[in-house]
């Protein structure tokens, strides 16, 4: 008679459901009372610093909802990603716990909009997609080999499908419900004053030859569209911006942050409209700048600041280069693929059209597909889940069956990846509004991983008397513009700059502080690197604009670094010796740490093998500020 009893209970439960619906008003009333009590007990006080604090975060994180992250074995959710950002430990696809030395201040989960949540459905062999031809291969993505097979199968589906026929993997209901998960998770974790959770997604467009055009769309607050605009709607970024404009008219404010221009084969920063011969004009420039005030200049898949072929006189240009197009083995040409080059081209276009489409600030981010960014060289888990968690699969440790006398290494894209990067934001408080306003003002900086802080001000009212004064920042704000700002002509007097950087308390000391200048001279693009402050009492040689070597080195056998060398802070006031009031110019800061072991060397030491000779054994982690522009009258 147990069954009868159970049925009775079920039927009774069915009735009580009805009651529950009818009595909802009463329940809500109680909930309000509890909430009100909680509010009066502890009204949160949001700290505000008018001189602004540096907040560190990651605007580029993939979770179980991204098609590729799922295939790579990642089962961590947006909630897990936010827990990790707040300092928690979460599990990698292969089972170990990932945790940072210190938490972040803000995070945006940015899953691929197309096929959002879809792989989870495919892998459910008994769900509505259990009979799909890709179901089995996706469900089998539980090893490096299985992941690779599934990744190729899904990319193949994307590549080979008839663009004019409906895509049977594009299920609007699945996407909509996954997008709701993204929104709800950000709402749960947003904690004004302590931690900011942005709602965002990735628009994953690329050209027909794997020319990368990806960007992350970040929303100001909880006013977001019902469903994101994806590559299945259009691969043309201009259509994305038009969509963002339309949203803005309806009170939905967002910005897009392009990433991996290094893998775009010149498509990210072109001189023409998308797939067209039509040169960029003022209308394009305004549309783009209205929607893309920032660019991601560094992340796990390489740094896009500049390339040695573009900046032959920059000794530090060969930094974490990734010279392939994204998700391919095709080479990516440097012109049009790097930030410094685009800043220069933007000024050229401005001379022709009156508007600069590339007057952007910089941030860095992780692009992790583990729901957890990997920012520390000695605590590295790469980015593609099961596919490259084994050091052998990312080329840092020899193939197991290779001859120790002449070791051979796997050669995959992971070989060119690194423990980068972080977004730095100067804001008055840690809230969505304050941080988003700073994004818009470009009062941002980028780091290749460490929590390096960098201040940068320019103007005619800044002089050497600022240095070392107590109210230096308030004075700099009052008399100059911060990073992301502009100084305008007329006036023959050269603007001066105040710059100041401090180290991450948990990483290496600083070696040198630099200004990178780009300018247009008689229609030609020019650039120069100036050391402006040196560690250990060194003085800049005025003939070479270089600091003396501070002697910092790394023991590759142990990763020990030279003790007592380097600076905790570096600062300077600087005036451009080559200033010409008739030339357009930009200036930005780069600050370099002392060298330390790169992740690949840590891998090799732990495996007891020599570092891969084709990889840099050491790294000089660094930070870059957004530029300050000079506009002649």
């Amino acid at each position, binding site marked *: 008679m147990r069954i009868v009893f159970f049925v009775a209970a079920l039927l009774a439960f069915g009735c009580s459901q*009805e009651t529950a619906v009818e009595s909802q008003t009463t329940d809500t009333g109680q909930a309000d009372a509890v909430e009100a009590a909680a509010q009066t007990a502890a009204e949160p006080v949001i700290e505000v610093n008018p001189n602004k604090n540096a907040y560190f975060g990651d605007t580029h994180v993939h979770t179980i909802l991204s098609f590729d992250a799922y295939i790579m074995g990642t089962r961590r959710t947006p909630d897990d990603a936010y827990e990790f950002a707040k300092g928690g430990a979460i599990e990698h696809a292969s089972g170990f716990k990932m945790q940072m030395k210190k938490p972040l201040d803000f995070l945006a989960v940015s899953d691929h909009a197309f096929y959002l949540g879809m792989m989870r459905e495919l892998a459910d062999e008994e769900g509505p997609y259990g009979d799909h031809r890709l179901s089995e291969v996706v469900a089998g993505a539980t090893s490096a080999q299985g992941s690779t097979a599934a990744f190729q199968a899904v990319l193949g589906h994307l590549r080979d499908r008839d663009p004019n026929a409906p895509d049977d993997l594009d299920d609007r209901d699945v996407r909509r419900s996954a997008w709701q998960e993204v929104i709800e998770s950000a709402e749960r974790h947003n904690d004004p004053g302590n931690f900011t959770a942005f709602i965002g997604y990735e628009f994953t467009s690329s050209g027909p030859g794997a020319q990368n055009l990806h960007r992350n769309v970040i929303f100001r607050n909880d006013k977001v569209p019902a469903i994101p605009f994806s590559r299945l709607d259009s691969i043309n970024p201009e259509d994305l911006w038009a969509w963002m404009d339309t949203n803005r008219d309806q009170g939905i404010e967002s910005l897009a942050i392009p990433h991996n221009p290094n893998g775009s084969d010149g498509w990210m920063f072109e001189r023409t409209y998308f797939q067209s011969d039509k040169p960029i004009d003022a209308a394009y420039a305004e549309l783009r700048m209205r929607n893309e005030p920032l660019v991601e200049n560094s992340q796990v898949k390489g740094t896009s600041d500049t390339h040695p072929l573009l900046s032959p006189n920059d000794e530090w240009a060969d930094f974490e280069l990734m010279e392939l197009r994204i998700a391919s083995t095709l080479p990516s040409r440097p012109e049009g693929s790097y930030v410094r080059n685009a800043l220069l081209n933007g000024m050229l276009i401005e001379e022709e059209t009156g508007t600069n489409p590339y007057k952007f600030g910089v941030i860095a981010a992780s692009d992790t597909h583990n729901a957890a960014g990997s920012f520390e060289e000695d605590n590295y888990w790469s980015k593609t889940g099961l596919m490259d968690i084994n050091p052998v699969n990312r080329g840092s440790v020899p193939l197991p069956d290779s001859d120790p006398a002449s070791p051979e290494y796997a050669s995959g894209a992971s070989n060119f990846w690194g423990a980068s990067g972080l977004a730095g934001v100067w804001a008055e408080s840690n809230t969505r509004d304050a941080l988003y306003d700073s994004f818009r003002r470009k009062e941002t900086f980028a780091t290749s991983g460490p929590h390096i802080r960098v201040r940068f001000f320019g103007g005619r009212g800044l002089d050497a008397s600022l240095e070392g004064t107590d109210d230096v920042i308030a004075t700099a704000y009052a008399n100059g513009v911060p990073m992301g700002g502009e100084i305008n002509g007329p006036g023959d007097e050269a603007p001066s700059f105040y710059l100041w950087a*401090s180290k991450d308390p948990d990483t290496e000391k600083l070696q040198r502080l630099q200004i990178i200048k780009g300018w247009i001279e008689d229609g030609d693009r020019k650039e120069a690197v100036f050391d402006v402050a040196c560690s250990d009492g060194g003085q800049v040689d005025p003939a070479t604009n270089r600091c003396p070597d501070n002697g910092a080195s790394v023991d590759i056998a142990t990763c020990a670094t030279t003790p007592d060398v380097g600076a905790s802070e570096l600062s300077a006031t600087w005036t451009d010796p080559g200033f010409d009031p008739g030339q357009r110019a930009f200036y930005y800061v780069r600050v370099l740490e002392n060298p330390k072991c790169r992740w690949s060397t840590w891998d090799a030491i732990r495996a007891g093998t020599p570092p891969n000779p084709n990889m840099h054994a050491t790294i000089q982690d660094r930070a870059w500020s957004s530029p300050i522009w000079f506009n002649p009258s």
Partner: protein
Amino acid sequence: MNWLKDPLAAFLAGGALIFLASMFVSDAEISYDVEVRDADIERLHDHWNMQMRRPPTVQELADLVEQFVKDEIYFRESKRLGLDANDSIVRRRMVQKLTYLTEDIAASNPLEEAALQAYFEENQEDYRVSAQFSFSHRYFSTDRRDDAEGDARRALETGASGDPFMLQNSYNGRSESQIGDLFGRDFASALAQLEPGKSPQGPIESAYGWHTVKLTSVEAAHIPDFAEVADRVASDAEQAARHSANEAYYDDLKTRYNVIYPDP
């Protein structure tokens, strides 16, 4: 018939009809003996090995076996309840169904305020707020000074103001760990040893240089009032209720089964 529009209620009502139908089907052939064979353990072991690319630990294997037993019991119980009637759904789906069913039952009754209070009392430690330090400091840069430590020490007497600092000159209510994130761990642990007072103390070394520190107040580690954490308690308590309802249900079922393990 409003409740028919509610998918859950409709599902449960549908389930009830299936049970009624199943009353006419004998459940005599569904055994109460669950035997875990060596082959089962080997299969669990191999499956784990394939998924995780390493063998399970003793504890993990034991957990897998327990999970297997639970699944088997749920599977049998599902069959006994007729969840498989006229349906080709396989074992995993049935187990899931039964699991969801018990979870929904647990979640269907919102907890009373008194129950939330009781949960909070029992689990106070989960809500403990770590000690919060409020302080101001003056910074003496080792990069700018030959003897930053000495200068800082002398400033305790003279009140000299020190050097500009990249971080805030005062902080309200930060934990030792948060202070360590900003200034370095050694500085944070030294600061946590100070007694609060009106005068500057130290000097203490940070990752940046030397500091005199005026520790204005320390809020000891404490358990917050219920009202401050009511939302968190409500969600945790609901989670716990769900968990214990599932456990109770399983424990009850388990008493009706004889589980036979292989000899160790």
